[in-house]
C-alpha cells in the first residue's frame, strides 16, 4: 500500500511550480490575463522545453511516457500558478490521437505535438451544454457542417480533435477550408475559448475514435479536477495570508475566532479532496473498472468545493476581494472554468449515480 507521491513526482511538481514562479509571476500573469490573446509564446515554449507538451506520450513519439497521475500533478502545479495557455486542450488532443488514431496519424501528429511544434485542441461541447460523447450530434458525413462551442484556444491550434455524432472523434486542421473560429467572451481570461463553425469542412476520422472518446472525456475530468483543486488550495492560502497581515481593532484579523473557523472550514473543504483527484488519476491507468466513476466523482466534488471556496475567499478578503486588482478573481474565474467545462457538477453527480447502478 503506497498512496503518496514518489520523489520523482514531487520533483516534477516542484520543477513546474518553480518554473512558473520564475517565468509567470503575478504581474506577468496579469498582463497575459488582461491581454488580447491570453497566450504568451515564450512561456509556452518554456513549458514545452520542460516536456509538459508530451508528458503522457510514449517515448517513440518524443514523449516522456508518464502516466495520468503525473499529468494531473502537472495540471495542479499549473493551476496553482494560474498558468495561461493551451495545456488542457493540447493534452487532450494528443491523448485522443494516441488512443484513437491510426499509426499514420500518430506518426504524423504526436511527435510534433510532443515537441510543441504544433498545438492541439479539442472541440467537444455543443449548444445546450452537451459535452458527453453520447450527446454529440455534429454529423460527420463526407464533410463537417455545424457548430462546436468552448474550444480551448482554438485560434492557436493547428490540429483539433472534434467530437461527432455517435460518440466518435475526427481530426480537422484549423487552417482548412470551411472552418471559422469565433472567439467566445469567456470568464477565464487565462484559458480563452473559441466557437468553431464548420461549413463543409473536410476531416480525417480517428479509426478508434469511438473507444477513445470516453477515455478522453475521463482524462479531461481528471485534469479539470486537479486544476480546480489547485484553485481552491491557492485561494485558501491567499485567505490565510491575508488574515495574518490585515489588521482590525488593533490585531490581525486572524485573531478573530469567527474568521479563523471560517478559514479552518475552507481548509477542510479543500485538502482532503486532493486524494480524490490522485485516486481518479491513478485509477485512469490502473483500475479501469473504477476509472470513469472516479473521474466523475473527483470532477463534480472538487469543482463544487472550489467554487464554494472561491466565494468564501472573496468575503474573507473584505471589499478588496471583489476588485479586479485583487488576485482572488483570477482563481475564482479559473474555478468557474473548471466547474463548467466538460459538464457541471450536477451532470457528473448524476453520472456517478448511474455508473453505480443506483
Amino acid at each position: 500500500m503506497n498512496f503518496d507521491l514518489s520523489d520523482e513526482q514531487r520533483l516534477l511538481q516542484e520543477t513546474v511550480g518553480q518554473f512558473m514562479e520564475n517565468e509567470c509571476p503575478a504581474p506577468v500573469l496579469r498582463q497575459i490575463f488582461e491581454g488580447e490573446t491570453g497566450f504568451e509564446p515564450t512561456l509556452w515554449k518554456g513549458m514545452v522545453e520542460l516536456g509538459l507538451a508530451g508528458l503522457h506520450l510514449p517515448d517513440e513519439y518524443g514523449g516522456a511516457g508518464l502516466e495520468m497521475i503525473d499529468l494531473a500533478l502537472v495540471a495542479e502545479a499549473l493551476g496553482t500558478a494560474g498558468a495561461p495557455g493551451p495545456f488542457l486542450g493540447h493534452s487532450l488532443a494528443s491523448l485522443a490521437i494516441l488512443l484513437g488514431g491510426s499509426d499514420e496519424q500518430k506518426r504524423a501528429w504526436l511527435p510534433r505535438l510532443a515537441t510543441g511544434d504544433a498545438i492541439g485542441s479539442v472541440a467537444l461541447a455543443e449548444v445546450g451544454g452537451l459535452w458527453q460523447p453520447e450527446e454529440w450530434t455534429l454529423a460527420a458525413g463526407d464533410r463537417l457542417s455545424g457548430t462546436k462551442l468552448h474550444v480551448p484556444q482554438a485560434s492557436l491550434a493547428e490540429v483539433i480533435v472534434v467530437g461527432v455524432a455517435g460518440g466518435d472523434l475526427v481530426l480537422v486542421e484549423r487552417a482548412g477550408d470551411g472552418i471559422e473560429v469565433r472567439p467566445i467572451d469567456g470568464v477565464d481570461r487565462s484559458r480563452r475559448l473559441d466557437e468553431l463553425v464548420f461549413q463543409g469542412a473536410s476531416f480525417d476520422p480517428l479509426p478508434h475514435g469511438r473507444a477513445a472518446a470516453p477515455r478522453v472525456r475521463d482524462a479531461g475530468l481528471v485534469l479539470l479536477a486537479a486544476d480546480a483543486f489547485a484553485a481552491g488550495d491557492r485561494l485558501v492560502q491567499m485567505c490565510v495570508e491575508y488574515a495574518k497581515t490585515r489588521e482590525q481593532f488593533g490585531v490581525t484579523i486572524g485573531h478573530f475566532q469567527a474568521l479563523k473557523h471560517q478559514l479552518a472550514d475552507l481548509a477542510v473543504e479543500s485538502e482532503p479532496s486532493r486524494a480524490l483527484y490522485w485516486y481518479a488519476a491513478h485509477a485512469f491507468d490502473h483500475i479501469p473498472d473504477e476509472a470513469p466513476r472516479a473521474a466523475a466523482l473527483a470532477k463534480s466534488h472538487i469543482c463544487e468545493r472550489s467554487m464554494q471556496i472561491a466565494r468564501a475567499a472573496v468575503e474573507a478578503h473584505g471589499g478588496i476581494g471583489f476588485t479586479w486588482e485583487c488576485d482572488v478573481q483570477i482563481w475564482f474565474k479559473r474555478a468557474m472554468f473548471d466547474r463548467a467545462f466538460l459538464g457541471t457538477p450536477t451532470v457528473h453527480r448524476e453520472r456517478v449515480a448511474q455508473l453505480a447502478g443506483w
Partner: protein
Amino acid sequence: MDLSYGKEYEEFREEVHAFLAEHWPPQGGEADLPREEGKARFRKRAVAAGYLARSIPRQYGGSEQPPDEIRASIIRDEFSKARAPGDVRGIGTMMLVPTLLEKGESWQKDQFVSPTVNGEITWCQGYSEPGSGSDLASLKTRAELQGDEWVINGQKIWTTNAINADYMFCLARTEPEASKHAGISYLLVPMKQPGVEVQPLRQMTGGSDFNQVFLTDARTPKNWIVGKRGEGWLVSRATLKHERNSIGATAQSTAVLAGLVALAKSSKRGGRSAIEDPEIRQRLAALEGYVRAHEYSGYRQLTRNSRGQDPGILQMMNKLVSTNIGQEAAKLAFDLIDSDGLLDPIATRQMGQIPDASRGWINLYMYSLGIAVAGGTGNIQRNVIGERGLGLPRDAYAQGKAAK
C-alpha cells in the same frame, strides 16, 4: 390583521393618481419646456402637494409631512407607474440630509438641504479606507486646521458616484492625540478642487461602480464640520443606520425569485425543462420560503414603523436576510445556466435590475458577494444581531482589550 391598505389609503392613492394625471407629463405650454425645467416645476408642485421630500421641513424645501410609510410606499408606487420624477435618490438625500437635519447647524441646513433634495447638488460618502473597512476606529485620513481651513490628506475607497459628486461628506482624524473613535470629525468637502483625485475602482465583473478618492492637501472651510470636533463617529452612526434599512428592502428578493422561476422554465436539465426537475423544484420552493418570510416580515416592520413602534431585532436582520437570499438565488441561477457559466459576466448591472440572460446572472453571481461587502460584511451584521439584538456581551477585541 388587514393586508389591504384600507379605505383612507385607497382614497389617498386615487388622490395621488389624479395629481399625476394632471401634472405629469407636463401639460399644455409646459410640455414644450426643456426636460429639466419641466421636471423642476413638477417637483415643486409635488412637494407643495406633500408627495415629495416628506421628511424635510418646509423651511428647507420639503413638504414636512408626518411620517407615514404606507403613504410613502403608495406615492412610490404611483409615481413609478406614471414614470414621474420622484424624490431624488442617492446618498445625499438618503444619508447626508437626515444627518444634517439631526446634527447640522442651521446655516448648513440652509445651504445644503434644499439643493440636495432638489437634485441641484450631489454627494459622495467618504467613510471606508483601504486600511479600515468595518473598523472606523482605525481611520487614517487626517484633517489639520490651517488658519480657517481644514487641510485634508488621505485616501478613501468604495466611493460610489465620486466622479459626478459636487461634495463629499467624510470622516477624518482631526485630533491625532485622541485615540480610536474619539479623534474623528465629520467634514463636508468640495470635490471639484485640485487636492481631490478620483480613480475608478474596477470590480471582478470588469465594471467600475466604485472609486478611490485621493485627498492631497484638499481644503474645506473651518465651519464645514458637522457636530463638534471629535464627534464625527457619533454623527456618522445615524447615517449608517439609514443605510442598513435601505439595503434591507425586500422588493429585490421577491423580484429575484420571479426571475429565477422564469429562468428555470426556460432552462433545460437532463433533457427536460429545469422547472420539472425535482431538485430544482425543491430548491425554488425552499428559496421562496425565505423570500416570503422576508417579504411578510417587511409588512410587520412597515406596520410597526408606521405606528412609530420599534420593529426590534427584525430590523437588524434585513441586511443579512437579503444577502443570504441573494447568495442562494445566485447559486441556483448559476446551476441553472449550466455551461453558460463559462461566459464573462456583463460588466455592470443597474442596482436592483433582475438579469434576463446568462451573463447577467453571472454578474449577479459575483455581485451577490459584493453586496455582502457593501454595507458592512455579514460578520458585522452578526455582531449587531448578537450584541444589540440578543444581548450577548461585546467582543473583547471591539472593546480594544486584546490590543492593550
